[in-house]
């Protein structure tokens, strides 16, 4: 697939690209070798029975590519198909990729995540698949192979895939990217519009968006919505291993416990940013990625 950036505006929006185009532009040119190709038609066994169209790749492309010359394994979820939902085949492709990584030991596994979580049409299979993805991902990390997650699609990274992302070594997000457990509509449906107005886009992004995740330390790098910025961040992440040790987990628990304290009786993300010492917290929503990066007071805890 070819994409020709405009000569006057060479930036290509990560969010606007479909999954396959992201792969084509992010990794070294023409190096992607796909496994379980669309032509093999390994498709959902459930969707057609429910009267819902299937996709030839079940919404995820997996394979091997080169990143700055290093062989890496790649998975890219297509957010426009069923919201990137993880069904039986989709999940099995992710699990298989991680298991193969254990055998072949690539330089890293790079996951271009865009998903609402488990695909509700095949929820039982999807739930099992997501738990298998987590186990396989953690096995890969335990074997010393870094797992890098890139989040910048319009559908965000939610539900089970939000947990999968937080199991990884390194997360790169754009300010457009979102990362959370329950999505905005789910929170509003279960707790009421007074608790969370899912149509308030500024609120949604303040609460789940890339800037928020970066300031809180939930993601490791914040970039502009630019495929080449994601590529540069992914290359930089290749060198950053995060051993899965008791020490690392205790630090993580301490961070989460502190967040409960910091978040007590805060009504909005801006208040939370103020509490954790972010200067100019009220201006954060208007800042670009470079300006927000300069704000993070905490040292990169993992380098």
């Amino acid at each position, binding site marked *: 697939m070819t994409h020709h950036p405009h000569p006057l505006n060479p930036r290509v929006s990560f969010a606007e690209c479909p999954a*396959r185009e992201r792969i084509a532009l992010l990794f070294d040119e023409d190096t992607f070798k796909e496994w379980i190709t669309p*032509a093999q038609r390994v498709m959902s066994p459930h969707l057609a029975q429910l009267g819902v*169209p299937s996709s030839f790749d079940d919404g995820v492309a997996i394979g091997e590519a080169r990143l700055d010359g290093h062989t890496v394994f790649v998975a890219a979820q297509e957010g*426009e*198909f069923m919201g990137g939902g993880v069904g039986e085949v989709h999940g099995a492709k992710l699990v298989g990729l991680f298991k193969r990584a254990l055998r072949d030991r690539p330089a890293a596994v790079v996951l271009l995540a865009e998903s609402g979580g488990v695909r509700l049409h095949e929820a039982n299979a999807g739930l099992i698949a997501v738990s298998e993805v987590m186990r396989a991902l953690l096995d890969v990390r335990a074997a010393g192979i870094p797992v890098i997650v890139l989040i910048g699609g319009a559908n965000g990274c939610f539900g089970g895939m939000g947990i999968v992302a937080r199991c990884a070594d390194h997360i790169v997000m754009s300010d457009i990217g979102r990362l959370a457990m329950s999505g905005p509509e789910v929170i509003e449906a279960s707790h009421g519009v007074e608790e969370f107005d899912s149509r308030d886009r500024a609120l949604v992004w303040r609460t789940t968006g890339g800037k928020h995740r970066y300031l809180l330390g939930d993601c490791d790098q914040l970039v502009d919505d630019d495929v080449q910025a994601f590529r540069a961040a992914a290359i930089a992440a290749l060198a950053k291993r995060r051993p899965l040790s008791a020490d690392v987990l205790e630090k993580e628990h301490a961070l989460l416990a502190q967040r409960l304290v910091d978040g007590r009786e805060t009504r909005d993300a801006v208040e939370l940013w103020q509490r954790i010492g972010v200067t100019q917290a009220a201006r954060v929503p208007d800042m670009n990625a470079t300006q927000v990066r300069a704000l993070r007071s905490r040292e990169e805890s993992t380098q």
Partner: protein
Amino acid sequence: MSVPIGIESLNYEFPGHRPAGQFAPVLVGVVGSGNMEVMLEPASTSTCRFAVQTSARGFGAIWEAVLRDFQQRHGLAGVSVSINDMGATPAVVSLRLAQAAAEIE
């Protein structure tokens, strides 16, 4: 009037005069609302075959007109076209087909 639920399968075959020869399968588009994916694969026929799976039932006549129009312009021979559709309009269908054809021409 009740509309039966489920996917509708539509199949068409038109003669072609421009053999595509061997090529790697091409996939464009996404199965999203108002969108579709189309895959072109080489076939051993002298025709162009279309296999459509669509969630929008009852539009067979329009599909036939749009696909016939595409084939009149491209005249592909030895090509199998597989479509998964989620309610793409005729204009979107034509654009996706043209996009796919451009990859093998």
